[in-house]
């Protein structure tokens, strides 16, 4: 079955733009509300503990203002619990990701996306605002709500990547996805600004604003999102690829070109999901969604997942703990620390886009990652010795963000899209959301384990050892993608030699 519209070169219509913007801003709002939690940690910690006093001095009076809340006896206990909450969130987020990827490939993406956004907004409202208005503080309630929040939020990422994958084909994927993957960092920046502006009224208002904003986003997505071109009768453009790179015999992941250079390929509109039919395969129904284990065994998925686990640990530790570290270590006010933590995300955006472009030009992704990660280790050493000057700190923070955030953004978006559309699938299976879910799920497990470790290391050994831990993790991620780097570099050398021989 072939639709009459096929065969056109699809232009980027306003539908493409709206799909880009809606998916972009869905994830922006999600990350903004996550950032809110990490930016108000100091205030929440103050709310949960009684005033600190020397042992000899009497407690402050009146008790309702200074001593009444003792969910935790002191700020160390509160800090540890905040780390536990981060871990719980990331674990349930990881579990949810594994499931949501599978669900997203089978259900209406728009419903899943709006449900995730709105549901998560309601849970965040209850967590931060309602408990404060009712003056009800309970450890188990917080844990339960945060588990629910992780599960609901996990629906968002695979859906947005799948929608983007439906609308934007392989041509220019590196650049478009690189630009689009800035959504996480833009969300962090937005969340930081929102939180720091509203914090003075009370942390409950920070939660209120971001959760209402997120709910509004869910409503807009429900009414405005088209999940694929097929919904308006469009087809995706024929796949010409960026430039046909010679396929090497043992290159198992031709990232930039797929089957375009083969003769007789026939473009067919198939449920709006772009598929390349080879030669004379019979027409068939909508491609089946891939099974979880098959997706996991696809080449490249495992090493990138493990590397992403280490990288996301470092990235998310910065994301969750940076304002806290800045205000505790340097004594800056929480609102100031929030604004400063924005620079890490700025570096991440620039890094993701530039490194995505470079890897597009080179045709290889792993070497770019390796170089960036090596430089990241140096940047971490530099940042850990940062002087208490805000300008220098911001500059070092941006540099670190560039070198760590860049690879992180690339792996989670462009590389996942590559893996989900690779040759090994031969267009016969729908794997994009599942692979995205696997990579991000493994990454989140790593990040989850890391959060708890960070708070334990910090309370027992101090912040310097936390930085050593980050450096070790960055090194580990290089180790995991070492086989891929070796393969790609060998491929590059062979191409060079082949080209030299031709001349």
């Amino acid at each position, binding site marked *: 079955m072939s639709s009459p519209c096929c065969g056109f070169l699809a232009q980027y219509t*306003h*539908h493409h733009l*709206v799909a880009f913007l*809606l998916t972009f801003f869905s994830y922006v709002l999600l990350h903004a509300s996550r950032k809110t939690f990490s930016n108000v940690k100091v*205030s929440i910690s*103050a*709310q949960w503990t009684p*005033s600190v006093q*020397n042992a000899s*001095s009497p407690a*402050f*009076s*009146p008790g*309702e*203002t*200074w001593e*009444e*809340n003792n969910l935790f006896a002191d700020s160390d206990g509160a800090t540890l619990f905040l780390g536990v909450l981060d871990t719980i969130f990331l674990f349930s987020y990881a579990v949810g990701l594994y499931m949501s990827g599978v669900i997203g490939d089978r259900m209406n993406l728009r419903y899943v996306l709006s449900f995730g956004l709105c549901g998560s907004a309601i849970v965040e409202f209850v967590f931060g605002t309602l408990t404060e208005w009712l003056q009800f503080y309970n450890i188990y309630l917080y844990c339960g709500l945060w588990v629910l929040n992780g599960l609901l939020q996990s629906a968002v990422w695979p859906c947005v990547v799948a929608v983007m994958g439906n609308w934007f084909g392989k041509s220019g994927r590196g650049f478009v996805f690189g630009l689009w993957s800035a959504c996480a960092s833009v969300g962090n920046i937005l969340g930081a600004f929102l939180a720091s502006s*509203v914090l*003075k*009224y*009370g942390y409950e*208002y920070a939660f209120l*604003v971001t959760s*209402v*904003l997120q709910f*509004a986003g869910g*409503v*807009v997505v*429900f*009414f*405005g*999102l*088209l*999940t*694929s071109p*097929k*919904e*308006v*009768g469009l087809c995706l453009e024929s796949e010409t690829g960026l430039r046909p790179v010679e396929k090497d015999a043992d290159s198992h992941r031709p990232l930039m070109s797929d089957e375009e250079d083969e003769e007789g390929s026939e473009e067919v509109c198939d*449920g*709006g999901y772009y598929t390349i039919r080879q030669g004379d395969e019979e027409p068939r129904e909508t491609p089946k969604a891939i099974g979880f284990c098959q997706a996991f065994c696809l080449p490249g998925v495992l090493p990138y997942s493990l590397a992403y686990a280490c990288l996301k640990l470092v990235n998310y530790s910065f994301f969750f703990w940076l304002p806290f570290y800045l205000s505790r270590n340097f004594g800056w006010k929480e609102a100031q620390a929030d604004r400063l933590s924005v620079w890490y995300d700025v570096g991440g955006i620039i890094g993701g886009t530039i490194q995505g472009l470079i890897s597009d030009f080179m045709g290889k992704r792993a070497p770019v990652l390796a170089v960036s990660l090596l430089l990241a280790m140096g940047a971490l050493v530099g940042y850990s010795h940062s002087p208490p000057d805000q300008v220098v700190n911001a500059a070092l923070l941006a540099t670190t963000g560039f070198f760590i955030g860049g690879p992180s953004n690339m792996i989670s978006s462009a590389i996942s899209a590559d893996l989900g559309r690779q040759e090994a699938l031969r267009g016969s299976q729908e794997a994009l959301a599942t692979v995205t879910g696997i990579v991000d799920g493994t990454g989140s497990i790593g990040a989850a384990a890391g959060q708890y470790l960070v708070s334990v290391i910090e309370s027992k050994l101090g912040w310097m050892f936390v930085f050593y831990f980050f450096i070790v993790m960055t090194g580990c991620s290089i180790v995991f993608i070492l086989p891929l780097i070796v393969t790609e570099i060998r491929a590059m050398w062979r191409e060079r030699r082949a080209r030299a021989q031709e001349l």
Partner: protein
Amino acid sequence: MTAGHSQQNAAVVLLFIHLCFSGGYQLTELQVGLCHLCNGTVQNGTAVSQFCSASAGLIDGRCCLLRKENIRDADYIIGLYVSLSLDLSNCSLSRVEDLQDAFSATTIDLSLNPIVNLDDSLFEGFIQLANLILPANLVCPGGNASWDKVKVKGETHFCEGQKDICNQTGYLSLNCPENSLCVPYGPGFFQCSCVDAFRGYKCLREGEFPIIQVFGPLAGSTVLVSILLWLTQRRKAISV
């Protein structure tokens, strides 16, 4: 005599009515509790009785209620201020547990009682206490440094004039946390109360959040954008 008596009765009735309007519930509890803790009325010759007759106050049990009018044109009733003096001397009290009902007292007389010791926290919150008369074996609450004048006359110990603890240079450790100021709260006691627009737990919150200004435009723009996108995007969507 009768004229004076009926005048007094009328005054009592008026006072009760005024107290009801101005929320003088504590004083009514007082009348049941502390004022009648021990028998009799204000003893002759005590400081309280001298003070009471000099200022033409009302005697009820062991209490002397002085009606001070703080006249304001619009609310005569609300401006009523009652000052209280409590005379518990010669009551055979061996222990004093709770005087909280009399926290607004200006004078308290506990002399001629076989009290062994007084808990310092008994007088927490007694910001208007200007005269405290104790048996000689007891010390002034908050120490001698908390009072302007401390003298011992025979069997009684006079503590006069509460000092503002917040102004004392001797109390160097009296630092209230951020956004709060020291206010006196009884002899030797202080409170840290939030300054200016700060409020809430630990005085962390400042100002009032402008809910309407934030959420009004947000709701409006959400509706607008949803309608716009639905018209341009989804209206012609076919179900896949």
